[in-house]
């Protein structure tokens, strides 16, 4: 594996880091959102980054709406979409339609609430996103700097190779 490929993998890793941080930042106001953490690994083919979901509980916020629900502890709301598929979410902003069915803002109906042992639901509260904006800003800057550094390394390797090949031609 040559240096250029290594530096390129570092650049693409930095890009993934930025994507993860930007996704977290964008969802700073999305209730029930759980941030992703970028984990870097050294592999045979260079550096790779994967995103790992952070299961930390978000802060509970009193909203004054009786149909808002927050899960304290492990668990999820199970919703059914119009197509019949079910999904799980931590976002509990529901409205009751005139037939008495609880729906979220995307029109999905609440089927059940999956709760782990010891978890419970609090009415009148929502779970805020667990994104820490300041921490994500640091991640953005780090990603930017590491991208820049990798680009410099790549350029340096490229210039060395260029110089080497021009020296080679002098010896001919």
């Amino acid at each position, binding site marked *: 594996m040559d240096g250029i490929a290594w530096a390129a993998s570092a650049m693409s890793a930095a890009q993934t880091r*930025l994507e993860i941080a930007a996704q977290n930042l964008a969802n700073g106001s999305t209730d029930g959102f759980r941030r992703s953490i970028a984990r870097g690994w050294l592999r045979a083919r260079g550096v790779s980054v994967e995103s790992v979901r952070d299961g930390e509980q978000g802060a509970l916020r009193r909203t004054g709406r009786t*149909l808002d629900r927050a899960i304290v502890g492990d668990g999820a709301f199970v919703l059914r979409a119009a197509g019949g598929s079910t999904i799980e979410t931590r976002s509990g902003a529901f409205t009751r339609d005139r037939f008495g069915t609880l729906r979220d*803002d995307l029109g999905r109906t609440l089927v059940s609430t999956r709760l782990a042992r010891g978890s419970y639901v609090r009415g009148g509260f929502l779970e805020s996103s667990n994104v820490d904006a300041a921490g994500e800003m640091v991640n953005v800057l780090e990603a930017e700097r590491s991208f820049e550094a990798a680009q410099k390394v790549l350029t340096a390797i490229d210039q060395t190779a260029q110089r080497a090949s021009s020296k080679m031609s002098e010896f001919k």
Partner: protein
Amino acid sequence: MNRALYAAATGMAAQQKNLEIVADNLANSDVAGFKGASETFTDIASRGGTLGTAPAGTHVMFTQGKIERSGGPFDVAIVGPGFFAVADGGGRLAFTRNGEFSRSADGSLRNAQGRRLIGARIPAGAISVNVASGGEVTAQTAAGEKKCGRIRLAEFASPEYLESSGGTLFFETKASGKARFVDPGKRGGPELQFGMLERSNVTIVEAMMQILAAQRAYEANAKGVQAADEMMRIADNLSRD
């Protein structure tokens, strides 16, 4: 990088939407019967899209506002659920929690926008008016006390689906269900308080705090856009060095 750029941009748009809603709440915090709203957002990626966030819906908070004594001669406040029904010029009914009425020349009670309260008409020559907690309107005239109608309250199966006019007026929709009229003053139901007004349910301190938080979040997302842009510039330089 474009994914990151796009994600950060949706974050900026979301905070802008947040600011709009909170600013509207704040602007109306002094309007009687005004109900504050809040916006919910959803993670686009969880719906199979790319990265970022999107506004999902606006929720009006129908929590009770503070009841305060007011100086108005025809002010009425609702304690509990329900709405006053007023005639919306076009033959439709509009619903409001704003009980700031005044008497017009034809004897009807009208709100600040000139919409007529359904259910009561004050006779000419009335000296004073009273509204009982059960909604009965009586007027003192030279000839003695005279009944002049009853204010009934409209309730909805799901008030959250009412269409908001932006101010204190709401309109019924298919999703909200039809208005069901109830007499106030029943056990466990809403009641009327005469000479009082319901203040808006917006807390100024909370709204200010939300504005600060939204501004900071907006800036953070703007930094994300800048970083994505800067990285594209760096990548672009690869081919030039």
